[in-house]
């Protein structure tokens, strides 16, 4: 069974705020749910499937009750930042299988306000061999990957910085972006070293917020007033330490990119716009290579010459400013990756960064750490309305 063109994204919504100290996490879920449903032209009573990650409460149980839903399909697959890219694929599969018609996916989290709840942290069988070395958040293990990438391929800190520079050029057009000021390579390199070779400005922002997405069947999509976006292909995997023979210079995108593109019937050269998970600058470099936009090891060179800069770069990426500048709600960027890809395909990105004639978009999520283990998911979206 393929999901190709058998489900459509009919509505998306990104919470406008980046600091939300006056709301509960559940309230933010509700706000983004209503936002995406309104965008789609649907209401909560139309929803028959619900998706969220593990920080929403007791799996989907809490939010299904809070929102007053009565779904016939639920899914709370937890793969960290890639979760919501996974959920888009799962929603499409459930719709293609006839299990549901209107799937609501909601994300919310308040880490900036110090109210991060639950989540997959620690406790796994690997943790007692990793927890005592002074790992200071995800940056430490991503730094291990960056250091090795530099060693094997000659990648430089200035090349990593180009990723942040491109994101900042986009974020200047996003009045809601957490960081809106364009930055230079020199400024990135002058920012404090956090975990070598990663500087502060190689890291994504920490923001409160959320987002939602509504995935519907072709029958539902056809009756809706707004332009929908078709789902052409999807894949997911977990890449891990592989019995201690860990490879930290490549990511699960090496698996999911080709699978998703094969299902969609496209190749890297067909992609007009890409949302690439950008927890750190090195995440983007490795993912670009693994998705096939350049040869392995050439990611650092690929990002030079403005290749990532919209609208006219070779591969315009993260035109909302991405996780590096705009938003990384709940420490999970997969949702915002999907949302900006939908904006591009609808022609609703900011005019300064709208890719002309954008027909095929890719959104890729990376959750966990490329320096240890991570979930990886790729979705290919098409402009074709239902």
């Amino acid at each position, binding site marked *: 069974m393929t999901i190709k063109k058998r489900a459509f994204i009919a509505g998306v919504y990104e919470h406008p705020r980046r600091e939300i100290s006056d709301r509960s996490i559940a309230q933010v879920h509700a706000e983004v749910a209503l936002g995406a449903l309104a965008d789609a032209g649907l209401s909560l009573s139309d929803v028959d499937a619900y998706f969220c990650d593990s920080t929403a409460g007791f799996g989907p149980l809490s939010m299904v009750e809070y929102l007053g839903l009565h779904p016939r399909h639920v899914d709370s697959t937890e793969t960290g930042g890639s979760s919501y890219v996974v959920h888009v694929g799962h929603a499409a599969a459930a719709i293609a299988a006839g299990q549901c018609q209107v799937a609501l996916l909601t994300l919310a989290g308040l880490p900036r306000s110090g109210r991060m709840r639950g989540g997959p942290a620690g406790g796994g*069988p*690997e943790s*007692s*061999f*990793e*927890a*005592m*070395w*002074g*790992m*200071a*958040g995800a940056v*430490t293990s991503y*730094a*291990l*990957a960056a*250091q*090795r990438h530099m*060693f094997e391929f000659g990648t430089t800190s200035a090349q990593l910085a180009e990723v942040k520079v491109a994101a900042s050029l986009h974020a200047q057009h996003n009045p809601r972006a957490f960081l809106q000021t364009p930055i230079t390579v020199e400024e990135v390199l002058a920012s*404090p*070293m*956090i*975990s*070598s*070779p*990663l500087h502060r400005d190689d890291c994504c922002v920490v923001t409160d917020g959320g987002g939602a997405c509504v995935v519907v069947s072709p029958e539902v999509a056809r009756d809706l007033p707004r332009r929908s976006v078709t789902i052409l292909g999807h894949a997911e995997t977990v890449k891990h*330490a*592989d*019995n*201690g*023979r*860990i490879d*930290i210079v490549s990511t699960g995108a090496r698996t999911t990119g080709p699978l998703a593109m094969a299902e969609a019937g496209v190749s890297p050269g067909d992609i007009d716009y890409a949302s690439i998970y950008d927890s750190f600058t090195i995440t983007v470099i490795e993912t670009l290579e693994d998705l096939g936009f350049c040869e392995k090891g050439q990611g650092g060179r690929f990002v030079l010459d403005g290749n990532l800069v919209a609208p006219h770069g070779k591969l315009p990426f993260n035109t909302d400013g991405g996780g590096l500048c705009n938003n990384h709600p709940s420490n999970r960027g997969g949702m915002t990756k999907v949302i900006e890809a939908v904006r591009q395909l609808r022609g609703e990105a900011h005019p300064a960064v709208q890719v002309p004639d954008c027909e095929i978009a890719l959104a890729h999520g990376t959750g966990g750490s490329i320096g*240890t283990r991570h979930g990886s998911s790729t979705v290919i979206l098409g402009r074709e309305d239902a």
Partner: protein
Amino acid sequence: MPSQLPAPAPEPTPETEAFWSATAEGRLLLARCDECDAVIWYPRAFCPACASLSVSWIEASGNGTVYSFTIVHRSMGRFREAVPYVLAYVELAEGPRVMTNIIGCDPDAVYIGQAVRVVFCDTGEGSALYRFEPVAT
């Protein structure tokens, strides 16, 4: 021991008790599959290479090389005041790449490919952590 790094006590499980008892005695053990001879990391009573439940302990040589490393400049909890320190993957002579710290040298002296040897750091709670020091050349 030259390191001022905190040494948080590990939390052994029935699956890893023998491993942590050995580090307290100054020995680094590795799990090895009885069926396919794969050296297993992290230690577990299951072979991810061939799905065998029959696994035995062997003693590691304690020798390795730095596979990758980072100098941590901002940290948290017990490690907040310990910066800068080195967190690394060491590739053991037996094959696995293990997460650890490099101690006993200036952080700026660590490099990929550097020969290192295991040392044991007392947690003060009857257990010890395996860390690595550069081999004098």
